[in-house]
């Protein structure tokens, strides 16, 4: 059976526990692809800038010194800049952005130390210099192999620097915080009593349905609404009414529940 997400548990000396969701191959590959695009744009910009400099700068130099410099020097400068971007992109971003690069930020990933602390220049340098080993021959063959064997999805650079890549917790915050408005269509004498028996897990299921119903297939949507509404009605000893549809019933229940519990 498949287990839950792979997590990293950290216990502080004060016996406070933290749990981080480890990033897998997929999210890391996506982040790397995005970073490759950004790096490509950087490099393109550098080469364009160098080409323009090589072409136009000598015209603005009255002394003629710049005109005397061979054009190949400008391209050497471009190659140097390319090297700096290629090596420094991950190193500098991860050190300055506390373990993130533009790609990682877009994918909600962050590099941290295995003890949960943020990474610094040293860790960033080690893991990114060793990237050259992981990426050997291109496409991360060694990195893939080591990650496959690692319980924390670490590549060689991560092992050497003592780092892991985690998924930021931001994702766990519900996207939709808006509360449902009730229309007072539901007139039940003991609704408050019934709602007090509604468990948070049950509320979450109904809430998820109401959030996701827009993209659901019509037949499945009505079946699920009926299933949820009938379950609640049976539990509360209410008979289905023709005045109120199953979805409206669920909306009302969630709306009143949220209002009474101040739930998100």
């Amino acid at each position, binding site marked *: 059976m*498949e287990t839950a997400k*792979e997590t990293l548990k950290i216990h502080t000396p004060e016996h406070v526990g933290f749990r981080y969701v480890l990033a897998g191959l*997929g999210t890391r*590959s996506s982040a790397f692809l995005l970073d490759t695009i950004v790096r490509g744009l950087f490099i393109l910009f550098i080469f364009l800038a160098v080409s323009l400099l090589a072409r136009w700068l000598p015209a603005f130099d009255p002394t003629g010194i710049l005109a005397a410099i061979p054009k190949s020097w400008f391209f050497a400068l471009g190659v140097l800049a390319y090297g700096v971007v290629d090596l420094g992109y991950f190193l500098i971003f991860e050190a300055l952005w506390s373990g993130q690069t533009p790609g990682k930020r877009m994918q909600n990933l962050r590099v941290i130390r295995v003890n949960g602390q943020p990474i610094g220049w040293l860790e960033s340098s080690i893991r990114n210099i060793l990237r050259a080993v992981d990426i050997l021959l291109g*496409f991360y063959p060694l990195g893939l*192999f080591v990650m496959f064997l690692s319980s924390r999805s670490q590549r060689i650079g991560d092992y050497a620097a003592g780092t892991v890549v985690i998924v930021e917790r931001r994702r766990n915050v519900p996207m939709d915080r808006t509360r449902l408005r009730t229309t007072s269509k539901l007139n039940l004498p003991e609704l408050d009593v019934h709602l007090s028996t509604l468990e948070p897990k049950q509320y979450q299921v109904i809430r998820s349905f109401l959030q996701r119903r827009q993209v*659901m297939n019509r*037949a499945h949507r009505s*079946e699920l609404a009926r*299933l949820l509404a009938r379950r609640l009605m049976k539990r509360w000893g209410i008979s289905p009414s023709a005045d109120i549809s199953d979805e409206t019933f669920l909306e009302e229940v969630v709306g009143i529940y949220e209002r009474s519990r101040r739930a998100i």
Partner: protein
Amino acid sequence: MTQSAVSAEAKRFAISLTGLKPGTVPEDLVVALQSIFPRKTVEQIRGALARLPLLLTRSATEEQAQKVKGFLESKGAILRLVTSTPPATPTPPASTARSPSTAPIAPSRSGVVEAAAVPKRNQPYTGIERRAKPRLHPGISIHPMGIGEILDRSFRLLRQHFFLFFFILLIPQGTFFLFNKGSQIFLGGGVLQDMTAGMGIGLIVSVVLAVLVMMILQFWAQGALIHAVSETYLGHATSLATSYGAMRSRLGRLLGTMFLMGILIVLVPALMGIAMAIVAPMLKAMSLSGGKQIILTMILLLVGAVWFLNLLLNWLLVDKVVVLEGKSWGSALRRSKELMNTRTEQGFWKRPKNKAGLILLLGFLIGVGIHLLFQVPGFLSQMFLPMSLGGVTLTLQQVLNVIANSLATVFTAIAMILFYYDIRLRSEGFDLKAMAEHL
């Protein structure tokens, strides 16, 4: 044989499944029952379980009865064993619909207990096909995922069930490799020079047969992989034999549907070629300049290529639909198209076709990484082993290639199966249905 031995031999037992122990996961029992009654589908067993008590057999020997009792009780079933006499009449045909509690059941010739035919339930049509409903293990949590998460989960599934998935695909790949090697050895010994007409025909027939067998094996493995990934993703246990076994009844449908899809895919470029052959003289007649003609042709080709790509993406989920939903032929193609065109999220890159394209691209890149990794030992052996061992190096490279192929294919295949479930999860909300049933 003594009188008592004869009577002991003749003593038969009726086994009834009367209930489930508290905390039993019904799906585990369904899997257990399916291993006893391999001819019954999961849906039939599930349907029978919904109408307990269920008479499993009325003519099991004592040994059989004890075995079945021990096995099913360990899975949470409550059984009742009653002594009975063997049925005088032969087993009725499986197609005969009977109530499971009254149908006589006899051991088959192989000694395996046969279950009574389970009648189909007469349920009103609600627009949802029951057979297509995924059975989710109550202990598992699934939710809609993004591209990265789909690939993460694929990687995790591959790691957790590496040998199962890998060997499922290694069987056809390995067989193909062995066949290839064998034919090289056979034909390399100067057979081709001294070949008679009869031998030539025999060779052609064998090659055609071999290709056919390989094709069947390949699709069988593809189906078995889909079954295995689906089972593990939904939280159920499975094995190599179960996965291949589950595909036996659907192999014909899968082969037929894939064959139909193949024909249609070949037909489209052929139609495009015909269209081009008609359009080209018309362009010439319009007396356009060479540059304009080239641009117009390029535009037409681009339109054709986009249309073709769109067609391929529409049918990307056909194999999953056949294996997991039991559809076939045109209905499978239509269902795949319907799934691929479902608007499940807002945003251009979140459309199923674009998502599928990105998953395939990332899968391809990861596949290249896997291939490169497996090239390293072959490359090193070529560098450091003496030239006389060239054959060994070549074989090593080929073996590693087969392994790399299997691994790269497995990873992308898992990702595509999870992608299929993701679309269904969003449009059908079956995770919510499973949770709602436990409210």
